[in-house]
């Protein structure tokens, strides 16, 4: 491939309790593009991201970020986990969450420096959450919280941004404005954004590249080539909606 690659997985196999969740997946996501990972529930979409970042152990295969093994390239990728993965009962402000994005750079002895603080304010501004900086994260709506996590990821200043279901439980207006921001990151800064996504309609309209996944990689390429009736039928079964019941049949074929 001549196009520079942001994230690539080669022959990736991951299993939980001896049941394969990902089977021999090859996929590459181009740099400076918006890529969607689509597939039915249980297709291994989140697992693909987590394995690519080294958060779950893989049985075989490897992941490369900008051509480097993940271990030596964690500084090049920023991750937005699924929003419901953390319980936010504890009083933590929006700003304190976003500052976490700087901890790798600041290390453990130094405090968060003045330039880091300015960057934190900048990132909050970009996602429209600066007026909420002193609010408790637990008191925000789902969409607002998602913006905060995006700000935290932006703060890492990584060229590759990886997001797990950022639009789940988010209203249409917030989804549109988040998508607008992601396109802006691609267009003005050349960042590469890879998103686990549910909605095939916006995957077609707003994204450049798609991986259709159902344990195996069904298709991977520009959305016009990857999201065809044939590939979606193979991934989802007969109907092109989330149809978790179909997955067992599919991966044995």
């Amino acid at each position: 491939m001549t196009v520079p690659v942001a994230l690539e997985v080669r022959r990736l196999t991951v299993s939980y309790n001896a049941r394969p969740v990902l089977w021999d997946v090859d996929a590459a996501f181009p740099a400076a593009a918006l890529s969607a990972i689509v597939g039915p529930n249980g297709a291994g979409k989140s697992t693909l991201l987590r394995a690519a970042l080294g958060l779950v152990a893989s049985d075989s295969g490897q992941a490369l970020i900008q051509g480097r093994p993940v271990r030596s390239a964690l500084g090049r990728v920023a991750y937005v986990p699924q929003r419901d993965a953390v319980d936010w009962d504890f009083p933590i402000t929006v700003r304190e969450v976003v500052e976490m994005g700087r901890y790798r750079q600041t290390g453990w002895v130094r405090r968060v420096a003045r330039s880091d603080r300015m960057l934190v304010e900048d990132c909050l501004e970009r996602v429209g959450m600066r007026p909420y900086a002193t609010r408790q994260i637990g008191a925000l709506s789902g969409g607002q919280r998602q913006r905060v996590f995006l700000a935290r990821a932006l703060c890492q200043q990584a060229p590759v941004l990886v997001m797990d279901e950022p639009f789940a439980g988010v209203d249409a207006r917030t989804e549109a404005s988040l998508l607008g921001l992601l396109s802006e990151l691609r267009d003005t800064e050349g960042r590469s954004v890879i998103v686990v996504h549910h909605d095939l309609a916006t995957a077609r309209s707003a994204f450049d590249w798609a991986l259709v996944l159902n344990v195996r990689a069904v298709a991977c390429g520009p959305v016009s080539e990857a999201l065809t009736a044939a590939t979606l039928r193979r991934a989802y079964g007969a109907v092109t909606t989330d149809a978790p019941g179909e997955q067992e049949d599919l991966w044995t074929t």
Partner: protein
Amino acid sequence: MPEILDYDFMRRALLAAALVGLAAPVVGIFLVQRRLSLIGDGLGHVALAGVAAGLLTGQAPVWTALAAAVAAALLLETVRWRGQTSGDVVLAVIFYGGIAGGVVLISLAPAGNAANLAPYLFGAITTTTAADVRVFAVLAVVLLSSALVLRPWLFAVSNDEEYARAVGLPAQAVNIALAVMTAVTVVLSMRTVGLLLISALMVVPNATAQQLAGSFRASLATAVGIGLVASVSGVTTSYYADVPSGGTIVLLAIAGFVAAVGIRAARDRLPARDRSAAP
């Protein structure tokens, strides 16, 4: 000078109480965030076995308790990281193993019986020696400076371990550091609060602060303030009322928690307009 300070043993007890009141909430805030509130309890039980081993062998119980608690903390984190057994089960095994070992070991000590362990379990103001205070001061300085230096990492890992790992922070090392810090806090508490009650002083001031504060920084400051007031006033009350210091300290901390829940409820009933004016 108040009469209470005329006695050497009271000066030592108050100093030890202040040290533990300061340190316990600092370590506890990360435990509460990680939902590991009970780990201090488990390590306290193991420290008890350490105390009994010290009494049996004639070593200073502070050091044997420290060795036992730190070893248990390392074991707990190692087993949990490997993920073969659930953290909950590991904690239970350590918990019961510690207290069973403590009771059996103390029965083997010359003239030893389970009653000898009571001051270690629940705290007693007359037991703090000058040597203890020196050890506690060193432990407290080590604890507080570790917490200060590691604060961002402890915060990130306790709050969202997966994100911390994705950023490239050494999550396992941070978890081990937190477990060892918990073990040290447990030992620091063994004279004034007691090994069975120390977990309360790590958890309750933070639960209280959580009701009142709006940020992590404010929670930490509030919890430390509550911890200090509860432990120093608890030891003072213990002197005048002739009751065990540990129980008194914890009851005072819980009274603070109940008051905070009341304040929070009253504040939440205020119209939103008034609340939005607050910072």
